[in-house]
């Protein structure tokens, strides 16, 4: 019973269920087993909700951050400031938050969650920024433009995603109240 409670506290719900199964066959009072089962369900639901909230928060931070960044062109920000903001500050913030959404996850799981959110946001920001910059030039070579958009958005997205992924694996998972 103590091991099951500790597993719940650690957010390791699979381990908690394992202990629950053992308790149900080794003669523990059915009332206690049922109480433990309900506790697991409740904590699991809370953890899932927290995880979803963290994902939303990570996305919101990334999107709002890049929206603010899109207020000016990279050149207007200054290439160094822009590079720091777009590829370091925002990916670390968004990736870090995304990583905390994976309760009791392995490092690869955290990495890929943070990578996904950060890279999609950065790629979207790049696509929007590029298309606006190009539209102002009234370019006529749309097919070549698309190839440029694709290459640049993928490279910027992957770069930001890698930074975000690393940040996501470096922060501890979220706990209720943490």
């Amino acid at each position: 019973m103590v091991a099951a409670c500790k597993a719940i506290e650690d957010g390791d719900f699979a381990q908690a269920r394992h202990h629950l199964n053992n308790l149900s066959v080794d003669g523990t009072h059915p009332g206690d087993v049922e109480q433990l089962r309900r506790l697991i369900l409740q904590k699991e639901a809370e953890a899932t909700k927290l995880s979803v909230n963290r994902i939303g928060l990570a996305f919101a931070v990334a999107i709002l951050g890049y929206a603010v960044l899109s207020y000016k062109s990279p050149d207007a920000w200054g290439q160094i400031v822009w590079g720091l903001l777009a590829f370091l500050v925002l990916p670390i913030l968004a990736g870090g938050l995304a990583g905390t959404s994976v309760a009791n996850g392995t490092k690869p799981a955290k990495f890929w969650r943070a990578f996904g959110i950060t890279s999609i946001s950065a790629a979207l920001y790049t696509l929007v920024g590029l298309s606006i910059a190009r539209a102002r030039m009234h370019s006529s070579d749309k097919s070549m433009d698309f190839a440029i958009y694709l290459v640049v958005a993928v490279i910027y997205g992957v770069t930001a995603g890698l930074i975000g992924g690393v940040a996501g694996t470096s922060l501890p998972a979220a706990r209720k109240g943490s």
Partner: protein
Amino acid sequence: MNIHHFRRTDGAQTLYIDGNLQFDSSDEAVYHESLTLPALCLASNPKSVLICGGGDGLALREALRFPGIETATLIDYSSEVLDLARSEFKELNGGVLDDPRVTVVVADALEYPLPKASFDVIVCDFTFPTTKEGALGFTVEWYEKLEDALSEGGVLAINGVSPQNTASAFACLVATIRSAGLSTLPYRVCIPSFRDHGYGAWGFVLASKRRLTIRQLRDIGCPVSTKQADLSLLHRAARFSAKARLGFATAPVNRTTKPVLQTLLLNPVAPTSPGSADAPPDFPNLIRQVEIMHPYHSRSMIETLAEHVVGSLKSIDLPKLVDELSTRSKQLPKRIAEELASLREYLSRTILDLDLWGKWAARLLATLILVMTIANSISPDPAFAKGHAGLGHASFSRGLGHDSFGGGILTPNAPISGRGFTGTYGRDPVDIYGYQYSPRIYFYGHGSGVYGGSGGAGSNASNLYQPQPHKPLFVLDDDLMAMENGDFVIPLSETVFLVVANGQVNLMDSQGGKPLMTMFAEPKLFENIRTEVSAQSGDLDREIGTRRDWLSWVGWTRSLFGSVRSDTDEYRNLQDLQRRLAGSMKSLGYSSESQSIPVPAGVAELFVGCHVLPDNRIALYSPGGHAAFLDGKTISSPSQPDRPLPASLKTAILSVLKKMIAECQKDIASDKAETLSLATDLAATESDLSQYQSIYSQNGYDPTYEVDYGTDSIGVSNAIQKTQQDLDSIVLDQRVNEADIQKKQADLERFQAVILSWSQ
């Protein structure tokens, strides 16, 4: 290919190919003049012509009539049509196929190799596409090939389809040509024989690597007379409704890999929506979704066939059929039932996954919308690329200092679309739109008499004077150029120009580069040059800014993408021009004159500081406003008695006068054509107004009764109001036009009188 040639009893000839009328000799000139001559007029100095199709030789006839044509190539794969052209049609085409300038090639033009940049005008006179193969001559791949074969200032003329009967196909054609990277100018012409055959108004498209505008069509000035077409009114035929223009921008592109033109031609009316999924099947509506895929099919044929199918289906007792199938299914082997169950399981899983993807797609879309909304709220203009403005080509009118001076800076909303800043910048002059101009060398020096000495009228201070060649770098206006060395030049005629720099204006003779005279430095001239340069510098700033923004994103990919390399070159050249213009502004200086020289009534201004007086003398003003009077033989001033007029100065003034006479005549002819056109418009608009008023009264003065107004349907009361406004506008245009003609006529007579007086 089925070719039918007929000769009617009245002697007129007609040619049909695959059942479609190619021409009727009674009005073929309308077609061939409208197709060929505009392209020849708009091309810069056309010498070589390519005609694809048009084996009848009629388009070739028009091309060879044009002055300056040295070679013409006709490619047609139908030897039968070419034989007819050499025999039956010889009286129509004048035997042009045997002209020594003509090369006739019997081949499929689509497969014939065309040398790069070798033709100044290309005419595509293909037959109306009745098959998918026939539509290959209307694909983007073909137009890209023609673009390669077209010279830099060349123009492509394309026989299109009817914008009246097949608007979507015509829009597709225009979109396809645009997709090949060409600027387009579509127009339509009413050809009586085509109309009688039910083809509707016929559409043509002009295309070029440089920008084509309706204004160019209005000022077309064709050097050869036309037999049936009225080219002076062609610009009106190039005006399309907003809906049609939207169609040009949004129509699908006809590609070899995805041909759509044929389908659009056969299905001119887009199929209506089949209705919602929940609604019961509406068979007639569904049948209308079936596209006609062959020219020999018709809508009624398809509907009749479908009715038979529907009738057959209705004869099936569906409930009985389903019952029978259910009974049979119970007899199916167990394994099949298991496999079906497995398939069902798999489908459930897949659909679940798809559902998940759908949710993610919705989230991504929502994010994108959020980003765009926020970006637009923060910075509205860049987000949707609005608020663009540029400069027009208002003429400086020889630097005149009064009414016509600095004629009006337009803001036509045109970005850089030429390639002048990417390739030949510094070699050929270029304007703010990036269009290149023919290079011209101006010989003059910077010694005494230009910037240094006062150089009174007729003085020829050539001490230390070393004329050198100078190239124009930037064309600010038709009559104003910024030179590589920072000076400004205003060409007055082929041999005479003004150099404006260091607060001085010098009249120069390009033959030998001698300074003729230092002119009165009209303050308004300097002010207007500054205004023009400032305005265009503002445009340059904006264009530089857009390229800087773009390159800040993608500059590092220049080794990967050629277009980014071009953008980088363009950016550097624009910066260079901006620097040079700033330098030119500094070296321009300011006029030391405190006020302008007035132009009294009865006096015409030839160029800045040069007036034509009522007694046919010319007044030339030097610095300080001192006048010297020229009467063709002598030059005199209050301080200096009569001296012989230097021959070089006389020749210079006469050359400017001759150029001005030619320009006035051209302007007057154009204005007169405009007068006729306005009169036609006025009559048509008055007729419209009368009809609207009649409809209004016949319908009990119901203002909401809908009538056609252009391509829209609006309330009759609104239509009357709008038509009245149109009438007022036309009347105003007529007054302005009339005043313009009178002024130009007076100037013309004055200039002619001077030449006459000086030659006696």
